[in-house]
């Protein structure tokens, strides 16, 4: 068994020295925070869970290159976010769902507004609206609003200029407002 109080750095050094079991506490420590980031980006539980798993495996495979003086979670999250962006690009069809489809999905049996509280319907609609945002907008918005990252941090994480982060965030908010209006999310 592993010692839960061991620092990330100590565990990573052990993993780098060939003790793969030391990776287990790192998974335990960060799987839920990482799941939250992934879920807010892809808005689907199964996909988010798969992306978390992939991120940990990718991190393990490149751990030799990791600088132990830097925060492990930041590095892990970067791997996961980039992975999620690639995933969203592949799943672009989710972003281009026509409005009628979204409306239909909201009014089907599972999402029956009568059976759901008004608040829940609203949250569901917000999710649907977020799904219609292009992935480059969705990722910056999620990192800013959910993760509360600074422009600098988002810039480093996504490897894009700070000015691009600023511009994307502004456009993402504008676009989302437009979608909210179309979907009557008020």
């Amino acid at each position, binding site marked *: 068994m592993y010692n839960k109080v061991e620092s990330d750095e100590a565990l990573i050094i052990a993993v780098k020295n060939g003790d793969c079991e030391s990776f287990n506490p790192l998974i335990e420590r960060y799987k839920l925070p990482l799941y939250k980031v992934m879920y807010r980006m892809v808005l689907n539980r199964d996909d988010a869970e798969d992306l978390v798993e992939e991120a940990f495996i990718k991190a393990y495979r490149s751990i030799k290159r990791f600088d132990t003086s830097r925060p492990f979670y930041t590095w892990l999250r970067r791997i996961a976010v980039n992975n999620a962006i690639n995933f969203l690009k592949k799943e672009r069809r989710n972003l281009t769902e026509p409005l009628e489809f979204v409306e239909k999905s909201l009014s089907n049996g599972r999402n029956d507004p009568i059976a759901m509280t008004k608040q829940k319907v609203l949250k569901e609609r917000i999710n649907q609206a977020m799904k219609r945002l292009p992935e480059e907008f969705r990722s910056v918005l999620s990192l800013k*609003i*959910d993760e509360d990252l600074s422009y600098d941090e988002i810039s480093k994480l996504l490897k894009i200029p700070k000015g691009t982060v600023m511009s994307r965030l502004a456009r993402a908010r504008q676009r989302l407002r437009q979608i909210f209006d179309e979907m009557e999310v008020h």
Partner: protein
Amino acid sequence: MKCDLPIELLSGYLDGELDEQQKTRVEAHLKTCPACQEELEALKLIDQRVRDRVFEEPSREFEFTLNRRIMDKIRGAPRRSLFRLTPIFAPVAAGLLILVILINISPSKKNAGINDRVIYQELKPYQVLPVSIPEPRVTQVTARMKRAAPDDKEKTLATGAKRIRITEAAEARDKDEIETVAQIREQVVRAIIDTNGTIIKVATGNTLIPEKDTMLENQLSGQQLAPPMIAGRKKQVYVEVATEGKEE
């Protein structure tokens, strides 16, 4: 927005990401522009909506099995990389296996049974056994099962013929005759020869694994055929042979 303040500045102001100069400019503008004040409030509401959106907790499977799944993959990493080479190794391994099988059909293995899974090789043109299969040869379409006395047993076959008739005794208690349509079959005789070409076993039948034929074996045992060569070596193999009466 109906004024010329870039939306990026308003959005940046909301995020607290503007430098002092930009911040002063936006604040001064907001004091005099109700549209931008409204816009700023709308942006705040959007952020709030985004925070409020549905969040699904992870599944129980995720919570309880994720670590094991990842650790299994991590522990198996070296093997995984080996398995990636399977497409390369598989044909090589299959080739080696065939080679080993060929090598292990040793010339010294002289005691193979009639049903042993030794390599079967059909020699063409058929080698002709220097004996004849007992007559008569019959060519009829029907097979007749005559239920007669036990001593009324007669087995006739026409080797190489397309049709066969078998009249066979059955229980004496029922003497009725039953006629059935026979399947068209081709009788074959197979012999196992040793490395010198000497016949040691004989079988007859119409399947790939024929039945041992003791009578014919007694007749043919010890007779000589030309031994087949496999990979340049003499091998003990099944050979399908034709009797003198068989047409090519």
